[in-house]
């Protein structure tokens, strides 16, 4: 299919144009109302897209205008300061965010993909408990993040796991929050791998595990990575559940994963944005840009990774 790229669309377009001309000459051109409807619907769609773009552009422009004076190296290399906001930065918050998000990725990729593989390839869809699990995962994806924060506080920070208020607890909480999204996206990707691939592999004598590892997963990889990108993007911007599991607003020392206090970018920005002094609000705007940049870097990397494997699969 991909090999014939280039020739086919041209032929197809020609065929469609010919058929359309023939149809119109027999039945007459489409009515005025239909043509107006066509234009109207198109402009509605444009309006929808314009609205989405407007929101994004205004956030970016607003934070650039507000935060421009503070876009310097201190923003990245300096820690927070209440005494000298004009040279303060987000160093400890960036590190905290990276630890938390790194932990999220390490946790959600194996667990999320594993769950998806089980549900798609092994689970018997006619059993009620498997269908119950399915419905629950879908519902879980819509639970407000603060609920996961409370869960994290009760079961991960205190209670059974008793990790304390550390970055690892934040990682686990956010992982639980985004896991349903990863599972749902991975399942879609796995389902999109044609059954003939599996049947061919099984027919040649491969075991079910070999079929999954060598044929299904590589084919589903781009879709799985897309799911992970979306989840990580959501996780990095979350502040509410992290506030509950101990992300503090002021740490001057570099955090570590399993001990000591940590802060994350959105929490730090939230803290600065609420201060009365003008310098802090400029700093908060600069922080918004910083967070967008971090997000952009992480997503570009993941998109590069996805395209890399998409091309490999196509060959």
């Amino acid at each position: 299919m991909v090999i014939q790229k280039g020739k086919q669309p041209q032929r197809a377009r020609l065929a469609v144009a010919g058929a359309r001309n023939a149809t119109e000459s027999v039945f007459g051109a489409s009515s005025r109302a239909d043509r107006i409807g066509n234009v109207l619907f198109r402009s509605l769609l444009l309006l929808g897209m314009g609205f989405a773009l407007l929101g994004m552009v205004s956030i970016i422009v607003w934070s650039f205008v507000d935060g421009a004076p503070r876009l310097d190296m201190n923003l990245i290399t300096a820690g927070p300061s209440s005494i000298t906001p004009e040279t303060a930065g987000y160093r400890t918050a960036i590190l905290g965010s990276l630890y938390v998000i790194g932990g999220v990725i390490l946790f959600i990729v194996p667990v999320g993909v594993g769950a998806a593989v089980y549900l798609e390839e092994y689970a018997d869809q006619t059993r009620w408990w498997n269908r119950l699990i399915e419905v629950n995962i879908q519902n879980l994806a819509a639970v407000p993040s603060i609920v996961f924060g409370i869960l994290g506080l009760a079961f991960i920070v205190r209670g059974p796991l008793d990790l304390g208020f550390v970055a690892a607890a934040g990682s686990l909480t956010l992982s639980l929050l985004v896991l349903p999204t990863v599972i749902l996206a991975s399942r879609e990707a796995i389902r999109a791998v044609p059954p003939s691939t599996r049947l061919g592999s099984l027919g040649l004598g491969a075991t079910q595990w070999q079929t999954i590892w060598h044929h299904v997963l590589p084919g589903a990889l781009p879709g799985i990575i897309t799911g992970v990108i979306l989840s990580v993007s959501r996780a990095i911007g979350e502040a509410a559940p992290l506030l509950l599991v101990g992300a503090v607003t002021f740490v001057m020392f570099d955090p570590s994963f399993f001990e000591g206090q940590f802060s994350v970018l959105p929490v730090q920005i939230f803290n600065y944005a609420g201060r009365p002094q003008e310098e802090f609000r400029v700093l908060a705007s600069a922080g918004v840009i910083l967070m967008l940049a971090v997000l952009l870097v992480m997503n570009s990397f993941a998109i590069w990774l996805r395209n890399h494997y998409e091309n490999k699969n196509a060959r």
Partner: protein
Amino acid sequence: MISKKWLQVAGVAGAFPFILTACGGGDDADASGGGSELSGQIQIDGSSTVGPLSEVAAELFMQKNSGVQVSVAMSGTGGGFERFCNGETDMNDASREISEEEVALCEENGIAYEDVQVANDALALVVNPENPVDCLTVDQAKQIWDEGSSVTTWGDVEGLESGDIADSEITLYGPGTDSGTFDYFTEAINGEEGRIRTDYTDIGEDDQAAVVGVEGDVNAMAYIPYSYFTEAGDSIKPLQIDSGEGCVEPTLENVQSGAYTPLGRGLFVYASDVALEREESVAFMNFYIENSTEITETAGFIPLTEEQMTASNEQIASLTGN
């Protein structure tokens, strides 16, 4: 073949946080200088009003004692006490006294503590600079803010000359119920903590939102902490308060002397006995009091007077047993 690809993905994904950490870890060495031998961690949580003050204290303290790591969170006075009485933090910033429920929780978990005053603070009722009203009696403030209040326009307030805005509806802004500012205001003006009308705009923990609201509306009124209106300058106007002895302006002197009642108050740090067994915690608390002037003025609060400092030092000493 394909398992090699997987190894690549896993490798890159796994190395990701470490690569970035390595990038950011360049100037670690800077932090290891410093004067004292003290080391350890001090965890502070609590009021979002006292939080910035503790941050300044922590920052100045760490400049002199680089081995000690002080972190400050702001879950609100109540949220902070819950963690404090659970033994999860060393100190709790408080903009009000510990409540009876919180005392019980601390007792249950065997946490002993002392309240140490670290600064003075004041709330201000603020209005738009265009608003003709300059002074309110405590009773008038209560008429406006009390539970079930029938005041909707400025003219509804008894005995208040509100000129040409008399027929305009009052727009009210107040902090969320988790905030110490809320507890303090409701107790001081309405006579009972938590007692307040329900139809005002709740701005949560974000006092700045009230400043923005009042700045843009001639008929608006809000109550905010001292530091917020000193920073806001001429964009809002603090009202004088008459508690029976004439109108008193919320100035530094009036708050410290206690003339600005009932909206002036002390800010406290509660320190636990467990925390004060460690010398770095004691050093931090002593530092907090000794440098009160520098710390409070940097954070936009009102310094302790001599007598208050003496009292605070006694509180610390009573827990450490020295």
